[in-house]
């Protein structure tokens, strides 16, 4: 292969790298930390299509034209270096710096999935066991008096990420996304109790008694901690 025909590989190379990156993100499961599930098939289709276009460009006579080295190192660097960097360094969740910057919503809030479902899920009410709930369920219970009274004083068990708050308190956080991780909004329940044995941002399984406080007509829930233990992250780290 001479230099001129190598220089002609710019477009197929760029398309190939982006196609491989997209398929890698889908098949390694990293996409769960980045996008709403509605996007998964479209990302896979786009990645595969980019690979196909790249192959078609290489094998179609007359489709390729040499690009100057300036394009290779300028535009090529811009197109390839940031995405490969981001792919290597992107974590599975945001640090407490970003979560705090975005502001925690710890009062009434209902995610879009609760709208389409029509009502909040019914918790497991087996006698003697804590109710198995989640952060959105507790927050949405503040919308209706009946739901709030059902939970008030009950022992519940739920998971979330631990973010430190005031002394002797922490926030149990879930990230709610509508589209992609960039629009993630933290929703949380404040937990009163000692969690010094756990690290910030770790996934924890918390059992506690639900209480509500009212300020300016707005109900805000919190938990009195009974027990806390580390747990594995759920398959879907976000709430949709």
């Amino acid at each position: 292969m001479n230099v001129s025909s190598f220089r002609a590989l710019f477009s197929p190379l760029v398309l190939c790298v982006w196609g491989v990156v997209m398929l890698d993100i889908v098949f390694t499961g990293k996409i769960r930390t980045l996008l709403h599930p509605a996007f998964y098939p479209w990302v896979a289709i786009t990645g595969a299509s980019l690979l196909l276009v790249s192959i078609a460009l290489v094998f179609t006579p007359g489709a390729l034209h040499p690009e100057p080295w300036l394009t290779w190192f300028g535009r090529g660097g811009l197109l390839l270096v940031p995405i490969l960097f981001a792919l290597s360094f992107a974590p599975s969740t945001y640090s407490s710096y970003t979560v705090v910057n975005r502001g925690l919503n710890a009062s009434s809030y209902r995610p879009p999935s609760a709208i389409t479902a029509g009502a909040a899920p019914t918790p497991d009410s087996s006698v003697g066991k804590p109710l198995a709930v989640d952060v959105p369920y507790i927050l949405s219970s503040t919308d209706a008096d009946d739901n709030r009274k059902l939970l008030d004083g009950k022992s519940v068990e739920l998971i979330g990420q631990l973010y430190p708050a005031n002394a002797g308190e922490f926030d149990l956080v879930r990230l709610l996304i509508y589209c992609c991780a960039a629009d993630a909004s933290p929703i949380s329940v404040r937990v009163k109790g000692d969690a010094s044995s756990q690290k910030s941002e770790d996934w924890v399984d918390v059992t506690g008694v639900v209480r509500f406080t009212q300020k300016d007509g707005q109900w805000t829930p919190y938990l009195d901690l009974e027990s806390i233990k580390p747990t594995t992250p759920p398959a879907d780290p976000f709430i949709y």
Partner: protein
Amino acid sequence: MFSNLSAENSLIASQVFHDVCLSFLSIVLEGLPFLFLSAVVSGLVSAFVPPSAWATLMPRSKAGGLGIGIVTGFFMPMCECGSVAVVRRMLRQGLPRTVALTYLLASPILNPFCVLSTYYAFRSQHPWSMVGSRLTLGLILIIYLSWSLSRRRPQEILQEDLWIQDGKQTPSLNNEDCCGHDHGHDHGHDGHHDREDYHSHHSPRYLRFLHAVSEDFIAVLTFLVIGAAFAACLNTFLPRESLAAWGQHPIMGPVLGVFLAQVLCLCSTTDAFVIAAFPTFSFAAKLAFLVSGPLFDFKLVWMYQVIFRRRTVFWLWFNITLGTLLLIYLWRPI
């Protein structure tokens, strides 16, 4: 003590860098399917629609062009990442400027998905008032912007390779006229026109399709990467919680709404859910966010440069910002 402080700062810096990577990757990945879809549409246009078709199909008057652009935006909705590539290709194919630019501005905001998401996001906060206000103010702003842009000469506002008089092709793209005369004109800026000539109507359709898909995808992707990098940084560093304190102020609230929309760079079908959850923002501040966001943000600063000259992008920013604020202050729906 200082060594502890330094270690703590470097830990925060490293965490923040990782957070920026996460935001960047998600913004780019979210936009790619739309960008690829629009590149495929571009390829189909390039392969199957002769440039002369636009001249016969599209209205010549500016008012007609505005109407067609708005109606097409409603029935063929596309987010900002997608519409840029299609509009660029169609401008190069000779689609009248008024239609193309109106579609570019209208398709992200005046569409059924935007209406539905706004309604659901504001289901407990005067949903119809918000939907109606968003569409009305967006429409007024788009008509003003498109009308103003269509009155200016293309050389003043468009990138060099899109200098096309309405309905007429540039020499390098004029497939109808290029046969039988000198093919050597206008070649040599950066090789771009040479490639265009090579893939003129002399080429088979599949070659024109492949070329348009790859070229348009890569051209817009470059600006998407730059825009997403800026958006990811702003998205990470901006302390939304402390800014929210100004959200109820009658003057500063809408200013903050516009600022947040431009900095957060959210997709127009999801932005309503994010701003609806800002409890300290007034209705006017949220409306300002929803009207200005789809029309301009810091990601679009870069993506618009695929089509517009830099000073036109600045003009768009100035007029969208000022126009939104004036309309909001005059509108006062609630």
